[in-house]
């Protein structure tokens, strides 16, 4: 193995003249690249950067078109399975007698049934399941089609919400909690019956909202949504969030 590696390196160095630069080029570390010389020009120039490089000899195009962020969607499930859940979130403006706030951008994200978020893993996939963005209508309402979130160590069941004005300036970063009493959706989903839908954690080791770092001070239950439905029929989450816009 070591021999073959040496052989490879030897061949490689004979074949390529600018090896040190190349090895630097694909490092993903932010700092090392921010200091590299001429990175902007060389990279963005692309095909035209080298003095003796061939120029493109193909027909131009296809021409790029404007494309919205792939966050913008109502159905945020992607490949995630679980018990269906519809989220209806209404945004109201405390600076306008709590009337509906139209045109606000609402980002939501939550974990899957096993308690995992979409993120850069060891692979290079660019999945962003269970993350979405909608703009409120004239009634201040946005809808999302998703699955009932699972839970993970140290946290109660929750949905993250980030509300922006139309210009993208943050109005509120908050989380939505769920009722957890007997007969609640959280208890049903994490019961034996919920296992048929893939929710296998049960309630053992679950952190209730009253002990949760984020929700424990929410004694007035301002952050708690109404959640109604059934395992087979799915659930509907309804919640209102007041912002100062």
């Amino acid at each position: 193995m070591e021999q073959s590696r040496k052989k490879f390196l030897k061949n490689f160095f004979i074949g390529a003249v600018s090896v040190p630069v190349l090895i630097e080029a694909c490092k993903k570390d932010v700092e090392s690249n921010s200091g590299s010389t001429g990175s902007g020009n060389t990279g963005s120039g692309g095909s035209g950067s080298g003095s003796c490089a061939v120029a493109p000899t193909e027909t131009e195009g296809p021409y790029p078109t404007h494309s919205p962020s792939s966050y913008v969607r109502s159905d945020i499930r992607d490949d995630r399975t679980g018990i269906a859940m519809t989220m209806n979130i209404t945004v109201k403006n405390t600076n306008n007698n709590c009337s509906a706030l139209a045109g606000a951008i609402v980002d939501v994200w939550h974990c899957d049934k096993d308690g995992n978020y979409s993120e850069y893993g060891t692979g290079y996939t660019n999945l962003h399941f269970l993350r979405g963005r909608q703009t409120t209508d004239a009634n201040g309402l946005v809808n999302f089609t998703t699955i009932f979130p699972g839970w993970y160590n140290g946290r109660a069941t929750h949905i993250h919400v980030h509300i922006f004005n139309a210009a993208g300036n943050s109005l509120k970063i908050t989380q939505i909690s769920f009722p957890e009493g007997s007969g609640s959706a959280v208890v049903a989903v994490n019961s034996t019956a919920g296992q048929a839908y893939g929710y296998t954690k049960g309630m053992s080791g679950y952190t209730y909202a009253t002990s949760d770092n984020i929700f424990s001070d929410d004694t007035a239950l301002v952050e708690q949504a109404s959640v109604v439905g059934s395992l087979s029929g799915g659930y509907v989450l309804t919640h209102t969030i007041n912002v100062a816009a």
Partner: protein
Amino acid sequence: MKKGRIIQFCYRKIIDNASEKQWEKYVFESSYKEFRMQAQLYNQDKKFRTIAEILHHVPAAERLHFLVSPSITGYIQQLKGIVPDVLDNLGKHFLHFEKYRFEIINSDIQDISHHQVAINFFSEPVEWIETIGNYMLITRSHEKADEENRLTHLVELKPFFSIYSLKEEV
């Protein structure tokens, strides 16, 4: 027949204020807009201006690379799987990518001219047959010139274009 080596290339495409092509400008503007939105998660007191400052003070903000990446997904799809800028010695785009990774190199919430991002394109596996001068002779596994001959490409290694992985055939 000479045994080849299976390699994957990485092309690191840098996009910044100096980028001129329309596709690059779209990526530049969309990713900056999304960066400004997402950065507020980690900068609620508006104490920081640059991503370097945010990352220094809020380690969890490392997630920003991922969180901003959906802003360019549509533009990646418009490439239809072809690595941009990388040409063979005939001047044609030939390299296909399977994976990519977006990252923010620099940015400033108050000054778009400091925004700089990178898209790392990881090519499909190709067979490296020979090195001729500064060029690598490579072939895509399923491309044939005719029944007996395989189609080949000559490609020159350049800054920001490198070999990412290697598997020697036994």
